C-alpha cells in the first residue's frame, strides 16, 4: 500500500499546474481537497459573476495570481452598454481586507477605477504584475499610483484599454528604487510621457525583456532605449518616422543590430517606410510580427519585411497586404502557426482586401497553421474545402467576410459545405466564428463534427430553430455561444434548459426569442442569471411577453443574481 504523506503530496501538487488538473485533484478525496486548496496559487475565473470574491478567498487562501473576465465578448462590437458591469473594485476590496498575498492580477473587459488601482497598489506588498486588456474606467492617475507604490513591480501591460489621459506624468512616478521591471507595455495610451524619465527607467531595469511604446515616443528616443536595453526580447516601437539619411537613423541601425534577442516585434504606429531597412537585421530571428497597427506601411512594404522573417510563428497584418502578399508569406514563413489579417478599411470598397485566394495560398504553404482570424472580401466553398484538407490542425478558426451574408461568389451557394469541411477535418477545433451566407445545414455539420468546440460565434446565419438545436445538442464541450441577428427563437432556447448549466454563457441579440421565453427559462433554471439588456429608451415598452428581446445574456452562477446591475439591465 502506498501512503503519501501530506508534504510529499504538496510537493507533487507543485508540478500539477493546469486549472483542470488541479480541479481533478481536488475531487479525489477530502484530504486532497484540503491540501490542494491551500497550495493553489493561480486561479482563472472566466466570468466574474459566476462566484463571489469571498468564496474565492475562502477556498484558496494561498492565492497569488488571479485572472478575471467581465463583459461578454460581443462588447468588443459595442453591443454592451457602458456601465453594464464587470466591476473589479469589490474583488480588490475583498482581497485587500483578507490576508491574501496577491502578486498578479489579469483583467479582461472589466471596469477598473483609479480608486481601486490605488487600493491595489497599497494593499499587496509583493504585487508584481498587472495586465489590463480591453478594460475601461481608469485614468493615468491610477497608473501613477501603480507606478509609485508597487515597489517590486515586474509587469505593467496595457492592451487596448480605454484610458482617460490626464497627463503623461504617471511614467515619471516609478521611483528611482524601482529596478525590477521585466515588462512594460503602454502602446494603447495616446498621450505624451516624459521621455527622459522613460530613458532613465529603462536604464535602471536590467531585467527588462518586453517594452511596447506608444506613438508619442519618437525614433531617436527608441534608439536611446535600445542602447540601454539590448537584452529585449519583445519590442513595440512607437512612432517610427525619421529621415533615413540622418545621424539619428544611423545610430538606430547600430542599436538595433545589438539587439540579438528580439523575437517579437510590433508597433510602427506611425511609420516612414524608408526607415524599415533598419529592422531587417533582426527579422531572421522574429517569431512574432504585428503590423496590424501600421496602416502607414502599404504596398509591398509589409511583404518586403516579411521576406526576411523565415522563423515567424505568429503574424498579425492588415489586409492591404493582398492575396499576392499572402503568397509571399506562404512561401517564406514555413513555421507559421497563427495568422491574423485585420481589415484596413472595414466600411470601404476594399480593393486592398484579401480573398479566398490568399487563404488557400497560406494553407498550402504553412502546414503548421492552427489559429486564424481572417477578414476578407469573399470566400468560396472550394477554398474552405482545400484549406480544411491542407490544415487539419486548426484550434481557432475565425472567418469574417466583410459583407456578412455573402454567398460563394463562384456558385452563389451558401458556405455550409466549406465550413462543414473545416469542422470535419479539424478534430481539435475549439473556437469557431462563422460568416457568409449560411443555412441550418452548417449547424448540422457543426453539431455532428465539432466535438471539441468550446466557443462559437454566429451572425446572420441559419433558417430555423433547428440550426441552434443542432449546435446545442451536438457540441458536448460548448462553453460560450454568441449569436446575433439569427432566426432562432423560444423553441431552440427552451428545448434543453439543462444544457446552459454545462456552459459558461449564452448571448443572443436581435434574434427571435421573446420576453416570455426568457422568463420561462429563468423560472425553470434558478442557477442561471438571465439578463435582458435594454437601450435606455426601451424600458417602458417591453413588458409584453410576446415582445422580442433585443439583447439577452445568460450565464450560470453559484452566487445568484448580481446586485450591481444598472437600470437598463433586467435580471429575470
Amino acid at each position, binding site marked *: *500500500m*502506498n501512503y*503519501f*504523506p501530506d508534504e*510529499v503530496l504538496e*510537493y*507533487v501538487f*507543485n*508540478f*500539477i*499546474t*493546469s*486549472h*483542470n*488538473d488541479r*480541479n*481533478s*485533484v*481536488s*475531487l*479525489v*478525496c*477530502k484530504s*486532497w*481537497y484540503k491540501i490542494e486548496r491551500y497550495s493553489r496559487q493561480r*486561479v*482563472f*475565473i*472566466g466570468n466574474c459573476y*459566476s*462566484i463571489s470574491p469571498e*468564496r*474565492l478567498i475562502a*477556498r484558496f487562501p494561498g492565492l497569488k495570481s488571479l*485572472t478575471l*473576465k467581465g463583459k461578454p465578448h460581443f462588447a468588443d462590437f459595442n453591443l454592451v452598454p457602458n456601465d453594464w458591469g464587470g466591476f473589479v473594485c469589490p474583488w480588490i476590496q475583498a482581497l485587500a481586507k483578507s490576508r491574501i498575498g496577491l502578486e498578479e492580477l489579469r483583467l*479582461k473587459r472589466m471596469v477598473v477605477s483609479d480608486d481601486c488601482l490605488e487600493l491595489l497598489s497599497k494593499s499587496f506588498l509583493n504585487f508584481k504584475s498587472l495586465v489590463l486588456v480591453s478594460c475601461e474606467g481608469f485614468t493615468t492617475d491610477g497608473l501613477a499610483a501603480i507606478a509609485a507604490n508597487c515597489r517590486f513591480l515586474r509587469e505593467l501591460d496595457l492592451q487596448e484599454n480605454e484610458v482617460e489621459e490626464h497627463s503623461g506624468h504617471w511614467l515619471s512616478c516609478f521611483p528611482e528604487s524601482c529596478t525590477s521591471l521585466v515588462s512594460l507595455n503602454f502602446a494603447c495610451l495616446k498621450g505624451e510621457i516624459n521621455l527622459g524619465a522613460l530613458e532613465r527607467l529603462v536604464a535602471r531595469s536590467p531585467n527588462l525583456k518586453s517594452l511596447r511604446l506608444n506613438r508619442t515616443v519618437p525614433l531617436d528616443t527608441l534608439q536611446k532605449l535600445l542602447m540601454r536595453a539590448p537584452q529585449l526580447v519583445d519590442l513595440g516601437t512607437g512612432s517610427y518616422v525619421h529621415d533615413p539619411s540622418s545621424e539619428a537613423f544611423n545610430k538606430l541601425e547600430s542599436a538595433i543590430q545589438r539587439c540579438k534577442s528580439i523575437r517579437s516585434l510590433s508597433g510602427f504606429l506611425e511609420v516612414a517606410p524608408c526607415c524599415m531597412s533598419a529592422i531587417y537585421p533582426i527579422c531572421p530571428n522574429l517569431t512574432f510580427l504585428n503590423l496590424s497597427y501600421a496602416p502607414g506601411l502599404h504596398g509591398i512594404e509589409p511583404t518586403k519585411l516579411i521576406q526576411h522573417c523565415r522563423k515567424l510563428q505568429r503574424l498579425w497584418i492588415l489586409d492591404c497586404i493582398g492575396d499576392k502578399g499572402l503568397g509571399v508569406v506562404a512561401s517564406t514563413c514555413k513555421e507559421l502557426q497563427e495568422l491574423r489579417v485585420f481589415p484596413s478599411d472595414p466600411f470601404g470598397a476594399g480593393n486592398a482586401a484579401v480573398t479566398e485566394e490568399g487563404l488557400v495560398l497560406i494553407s498550402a504553404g504553412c502546414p503548421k497553421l492552427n489559429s486564424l482570424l481572417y477578414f476578407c472580401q469573399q470566400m468560396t466553398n472550394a477554398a474552405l474545402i482545400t484549406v480544411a484538407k491542407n490544415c487539419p490542425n486548426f*484550434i*481557432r478558426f475565425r472567418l469574417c467576410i466583410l459583407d456578412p451574408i455573402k454567398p460563394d461568389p463562384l456558385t452563389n451557394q451558401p458556405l455550409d459545405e466549406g465550413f462543414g469541411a473545416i469542422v470535419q477535418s479539424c478534430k481539435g477545433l*475549439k*473556437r469557431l466564428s462563422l460568416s457568409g451566407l449560411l443555412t441550418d445545414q452548417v449547424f448540422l455539420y457543426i453539431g455532428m463534427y465539432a466535438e471539441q468546440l*468550446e*466557443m462559437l460565434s454566429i451572425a446572420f446565419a441559419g433558417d430555423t430553430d433547428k440550426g441552434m438545436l443542432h449546435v446545442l445538442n451536438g457540441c458536448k464541450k460548448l*462553453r460560450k455561444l454568441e449569436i446575433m441577428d439569427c432566426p432562432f427563437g423560444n423553441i431552440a432556447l427552451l428545448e434543453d434548459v439543462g444544457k446552459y448549466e454545462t456552459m*459558461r454563457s449564452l448571448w443572443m441579440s436581435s434574434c427571435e426569442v421573446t420576453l416570455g421565453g426568457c422568463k420561462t427559462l429563468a423560472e425553470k433554471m434558478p442557477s442561471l442569471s438571465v439578463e435582458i439588456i435594454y437601450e435606455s429608451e426601451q424600458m417602458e415598452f417591453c413588458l409584453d411577453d410576446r415582445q422580442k428581446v433585443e439583447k439577452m445574456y445568460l450565464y*450560470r*452562477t*453559484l452566487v445568484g443574481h448580481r446586485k450591481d446591475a444598472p437600470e437598463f439591465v433586467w435580471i429575470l
Partner: protein
Amino acid sequence: MSTATVKTKKITLRTADNHDFEVDEAIAMEFGTVRTFFDDNPDASDEPIPLLNVSSKCLSTIIEYCQSLLAFRARDSSSSVEDEAKAYDEELVKNQDNELLKEMILAANYLNMKDLLDMLNQAVADRIKNKSVEYVRRFFGIENDYSPEEEAEVRAQNEWAFEGVDPDDD
C-alpha cells in the same frame, strides 16, 4: 609518470528488505539522508547504513540514476550533454509502472534527493495530466470519501467558477 590507483571508499547501504548494496562514496553522498547520517555520526564505522523505507528494487534504480548523474556531471555542461541527460531521465521513467514510480517518489523523498524528486514528480504530473478524477484516484490508490452531494458541490464550483483557461487567452 605513474598513475596512482585511487582507492574509492565504499559505503554499504541496507534496504528495507535486508539487501546490502555496496556503492562508491560519491554515490552515497548524493543521498541527503546519508550525508546527514555522517554529519551526525562522524565516527561511523563501516557498518551498513539502514535505509528503512527503501526497497532493493527502488534502490538499485536510484543507484543507476546516480551513476549516470555523476557520469554526466563529469563531462562538460554543454547543451548537448544536457539534452542527453534529459533523454536518459525520460527513458528511466518511461518504463516504470505507476507503482514503482510512486515507490521511487517515497524513496527519493526519504533519501532527500531533490533533483530526482523533481524529475519523478514531473513524471507523475505528466501521467495524470488531463485525466479524469477516477483515473487519478486509481493511480494513487485513494478511496473517494465524498458523499455524492459534497462531490457535486465541489464539481460545480470547479467547473462553473474555477475553470481552465480559454483557448484564445494567450
